[in-house]
């Protein structure tokens, strides 16, 4: 410790004379700066440093993101395939609406036009009483002559054959649309699908709801975990951050590497989830290709479309960046 009584007028350090800073102090030209790709590379390197500085916490976070997105995308995959099977069988989407005997023709025509322009109707065919009879006669084939005894009376009702448009995630809206149709004053009765379609439809609805709830919970959990990991990194580097701020680092210069760290976590987690989903899908499809159910070949499954895969990866990235931003706002004064 310095002692007042010992103090003397300073002498230069050994080997250093007065004026040793003068030449160095003056800069002939401004120091070259990092710009464009060099600056980006610098941010990326420091972003990777933030991930590498606490490997255990970061690995746990990445695994959590991967598991969460795997579960969510698994739900999406199941919904997509159930939807595909139901759409392919067609029965889920085909509806016949029988028109009342006393329905005025103009009102029926107007109703048909209204249905044609509805978003939930993919295709429509109006079957008049005469067409119904002809079709029935054709179905009876050689026994069609039985119908000759009707003597001009046609007991068959006119009908509208509809093919419904499934909504973006499946068949959940079919029942509501059919119910709407059934209540219409011009309609006598509606016939569609079978009970198993309704049951599967309600299972799909529960699945979808479960998928969204799970997604909301796991996203919250993931953001919390990322924020916590970044908080630990911020804490372990608090001296460095404080020096950075003291020597004039801009808040972006301090923040960007942490945001990149979060993005790296989110991106890695989502890529791992997609790889595992693809592997699970491939194994399942391989099993199904060689299996039958009551002698019937099982359907070939389809993977998520590329847009959904990209969306899940982007979701991982956004969640990573959001977790970091949250931690920075909460735990760092920049």
């Amino acid at each position, binding site marked *: 410790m*310095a002692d007042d009584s010992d103090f003397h007028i300073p002498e*230069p350090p050994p*080997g*250093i004379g007065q004026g040793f*800073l003068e030449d160095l102090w003056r800069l002939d030209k401004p120091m*070259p700066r990092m710009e464009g790709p060099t600056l980006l590379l610098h941010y990326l390197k420091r972003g990777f440093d933030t991930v590498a500085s606490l490997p255990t916490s970061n690995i746990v976070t990445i695994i959590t993101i991967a598991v969460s997105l795997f579960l969510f995308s698994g739900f999406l995959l199941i919904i997509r395939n159930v939807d595909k099977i139901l759409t392919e069988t067609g029965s889920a989407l085909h509806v016949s609406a029988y028109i009342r005997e006393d329905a005025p023709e103009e009102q029926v025509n107007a109703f048909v036009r209204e249905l044609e322009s509805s978003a939930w109707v993919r295709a429509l065919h109006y079957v008049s009483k005469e067409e119904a009879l002809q079709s029935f006669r054709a179905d009876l084939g050689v026994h069609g002559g039985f119908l000759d005894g009707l003597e001009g009376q046609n007991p068959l009702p006119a009908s509208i054959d509809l093919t419904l448009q499934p909504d973006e995630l499946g068949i959940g809206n079919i029942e509501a649309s059919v119910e709407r149709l059934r209540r219409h004053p011009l309609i006598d009765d509606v016939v569609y699908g079978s009970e198993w379609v309704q049951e599967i439809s309600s299972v799909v609805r529960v699945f979808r709801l479960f998928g969204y709830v799970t997604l909301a919970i796991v996203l919250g959990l993931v953001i919390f975990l990322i924020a916590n990991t970044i908080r630990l990194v911020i804490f372990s580097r608090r001296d460095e951050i404080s020096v950075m701020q003291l020597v004039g680092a801009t*808040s972006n210069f301090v923040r960007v590497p942490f945001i990149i760290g979060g993005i790296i976590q989110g991106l890695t987690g989502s890529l791992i989830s997609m790889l595992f989903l693809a592997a699970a899908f491939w194994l399942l499809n391989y099993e199904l290709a060689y299996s039958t159910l009551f002698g019937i070949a099982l359907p070939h499954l389809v993977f998520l479309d590329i847009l959904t895969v990209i969306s899940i990866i982007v979701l991982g990235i956004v969640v990573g960046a959001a977790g970091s931003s949250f931690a920075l706002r909460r735990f760092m004064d920049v």
Partner: protein
Amino acid sequence: MQANPKDIVTLYHVDKVYPPNQQALRGIDFKVQTGEFVFIAGSSGAGKSTLLKLISAQERATRGQVIVGGRNLSSIARTQVASLRRSIGVIFQDYKLLETRTVIDNVAFALEVVGVAKRERYQQAYKMLAALGLKERVNSYPLMLSGGEQQRVSIARALVNRPKLILADEPTGNLDPDMASAVFNLLLEANRCGATIMVASHHLALIEALNKRTIVFDKGKLIGDFDRPRG
């Protein structure tokens, strides 16, 4: 209040109160001109460190105005603080070096965070360390150095940006007299190069020996401003 362009630091009726009710500074008025070497003297708790924190924008004044390099720090935007700090070098009693980085990394770090290109920052850091007599120590880690050497590294870090203003908070507090004299030699040299120096110290013999302007604080009040006491 209008600042004189010659004054690099102006304090006008400055109060600083820490919650809940700890008055660290009370009604402080003074100016420091560009190129001056000023001691801020006073016993522990007099308010010296708080004053330096206000000037380096680490704290904000509760009342009054602090103007540094023409910028009023009571109304400065957060984005401008970084630019202000680039023109200020700060030196601490406990050096605040990053222990996991080598000496040259510590000095180059000050240039890295302001965006200087890699080759340039290491060249500049090396030259500065060589000028401060630390050529042989560039690849050592801070904990391998003596206190005096660590303080010289922290001075190299403060000087490498060629700041207009250097704030030193008890820079020789942990050093023996020889080391302390070496540190002050560096600060005097930086002052000769044009940097304004403000040193907080309670080390009266040192203040007397250097014969520079001295502003004296006691319990948060400015009680004396002595310009070159021995003429």
